[in-house]
């Protein structure tokens, strides 16, 4: 497929992996920020190809995973309310709240619908003026422009039966929180390419300089990730700590300026709770006061819904890269995709789900050695 198969070329991948192994004089610990990158790494076995040169620890960049439990509980409360349609990206539906998930609410008569864009939710509101439509606006900077656009358009069109339950988070404060932790092991970052498509990468430059870590803006295909790893290894070996852009086909230093402008117009920075991690100052986006009419928390008085996370879930340690999913005592036993304790086991971007679905749990962490590979050639 044009623009994809080129970035999955087996020969080039092997050559890049070989160069990474040849360049590294030791094992470097690096973190890919985004859950989409985690899935490519585990699904394609990139960590096997670079074993010995690079240890990948998986970052907090799964929007579903870091959405705090209390926001999930608020969504569940909204969905159960008569006269309300809760719209959400499909990924959120299986995420466990304190009592149940959105699928279970739907089975009990709640009105929950999967949409592919917040603008579809707005359209639903316009077509059903007697119903309150709420969109569950989660995600990093990547989804913020579309969500901002939905609110902006709602106001422009005078739609009053539409609101958003906002749980936006931003990447740089999370990186700062990880780097300033005393037990931090991360020596370089592969920054999330799509976040940078919107935001650019100038805000990473002071982080790279202050903490002396290379930060490589990286895409999501196997060759993107391998090239990003190679760029990071070269900097680490040379003692450099710069921001470099691997994802040049999508990212400019200043990002997408109209999108950023819109986000800034609709949202402002706020302290935000991260599921499994805790509160990170100024790490979230909230609706500005002038858009308060579109804030579902205020509209439906949800401020008093609070939640406590289950103690046996180690999702926070996974999201901070402190442990690999297979090192969690609940992994694959107490916690499975069928009965998840934490969101990383559910989301298609969650690290635990990646390890579970691609079978790492059965083989102690690494992909199964395909002993039969030679006879399996077809």
């Amino acid at each position, binding site marked *: 497929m044009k623009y994809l198969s080129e970035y999955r070329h087996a020969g080039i991948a092997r050559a890049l992996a070989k160069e990474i192994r040849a360049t590294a004089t030791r094992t470097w610990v690096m973190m890919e920020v985004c859950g*989409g990158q985690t899935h490519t790494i585990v699904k394609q076995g990139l960590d096997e190809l670079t074993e010995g040169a690079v240890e990948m620890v998986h970052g907090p960049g799964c929007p579903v995973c870091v959405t705090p439990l209390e926001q999930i509980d608020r969504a569940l409360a909204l969905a159960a309310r008569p006269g309300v349609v809760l719209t959400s990206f499909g990924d959120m539906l299986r995420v466990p709240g304190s009592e149940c998930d959105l699928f279970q609410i739907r089975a009990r008569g709640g009105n929950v619908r999967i949409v592919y864009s917040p603008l579809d939710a707005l359209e639903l509101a316009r077509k059903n003026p007697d119903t309150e439509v709420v969109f569950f606006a989660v995600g990093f900077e990547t989804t913020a422009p579309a969500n901002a656009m939905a609110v902006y358009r709602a106001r422009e069109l005078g739609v009053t039966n539409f609101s958003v339950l906002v749980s936006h988070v931003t990447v740089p404060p999370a990186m700062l929180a990880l780097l300033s932790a005393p037990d931090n092991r991360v020596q370089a970052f592969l920054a999330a390419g799509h976040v940078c498509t919107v935001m650019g990468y100038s805000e990473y430059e002071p982080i790279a300089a202050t903490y002396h870590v290379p930060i490589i803006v990286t895409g999501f295909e196997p060759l993107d990730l391998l090239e990003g790893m190679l760029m990071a290894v070269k900097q680490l070996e040379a003692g450099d700590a710069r921001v470099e852009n691997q994802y040049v086909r999508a990212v400019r230093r200043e990002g997408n300026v109209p999108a950023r402008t819109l986000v800034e117009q609709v949202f402002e920075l706020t302290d935000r709770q991260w599921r499994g991690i805790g509160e990170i100052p100024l790490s979230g986006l909230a609706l500005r006061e002038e858009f308060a009419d579109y804030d579902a928390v205020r509209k439906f008085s949800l401020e008093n819904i609070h939640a406590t996370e289950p103690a046996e879930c180690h999702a926070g340690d996974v999201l901070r890269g402190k442990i690999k999913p297979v090192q969690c005592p609940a992994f694959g036993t107490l916690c499975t995709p069928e009965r998840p304790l934490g969101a990383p086991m559910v989301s298609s971007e969650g690290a635990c789900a990646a390890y579970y679905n691609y079978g790492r749990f059965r083989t102690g962490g690494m992909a199964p050695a395909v002993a039969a*590979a030679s*006879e399996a050639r*077809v």
Partner: protein
Amino acid sequence: MSSATKGIEEQVGARIAAGLNCAVPFNTSDRVLLGHGSGGKLSAALVRDRFLPKFDSAELAQLGDAAVVSVESDAIAISTDSFVVSPLEFPGGNIGTLAVNGTVNDVAMMGARPLWLTVGFILEEGLPLEVLDRVTASMAEAARSAGVAIVAGDTKVVERGKADGMFINTTGVGAIDSSFRPSPEKARAGDAIIVTGEIGAHGITIMAAREGLEFDADLASDSAALTPLVDALRESVGAEIRALRDPTRGGVASTLNEIAAASRVGMVLEEGAIPVPTAVAAACEMLGLDALYVANEGVCVAIVPPDLADLAVTALRARPLGRNARVIGRVVAEHPGMVVMRTSIGGTRVVDMLPGDQLPRIC
């Protein structure tokens, strides 16, 4: 049926009140009425005017309480399936095509020759009769091309809001040929894993139609009777056939996991060998789905002994439906119950069962 009777009485009452008499056709509605399921004249008219001419079956035309058929076979295969797809019509087919092909294929996957079908309709009051006509025309066409006769049927009508347009149940009966008995527990180490065509078209088409997604590509359901492909395998592989399955819900990945578990063998797939049409691959990329888990309605997975794999692929490719048939992997003795994929770039991963439906991701 009191509500159905009431429906007719109301209509009759209305006609009397309007000063009309019985010379006027009893009903000229262009939609399904509760009376169509009453067992009365409307029901009879529905069967006589709409079902019998299309299905054209001697057994059905007898209108007895049961169809009487005779068969010369050691054993028969019976399968039943209910179809509730939404939307009712979609590119490449409709609920009727699925209802015939789906059950025909379930029977065929046992190695049987599908012969007869029964059809049960549950219609929602208000369904446009033209939709019903299109669906039954498709069923008749699908049955003809699969070589099965629709021999018995039933129709019920439920009040508006109690069904999604229509539901269809079909039961299929086929004659077992004792020299061709595929079974999911027969896979052995060394066997070749064949898929008979490109995967994922049906599931992605339905999802796109249901959600109003517009892809700039030609996507259509692959719904088809697999009988020609089963014939090809019967002729080329014969008694040596191991397993046959049509990977509908859950896709190729789930089907292979089921066979691996039943046969207590492992499987190794080659990512690069799996035929995924570009439009399906593109849609999966956009939605964050994996084509291996997407439903198919016109593809089957065949496990055959290694020395017969080339023969089987050649025979399959000789049929239009099998022109993209190919070997996608091998059965191995290692890691029993586990399906492993060698990725295009040389890594490996496990291809497991999913806990539920695939869900589109956030970004």
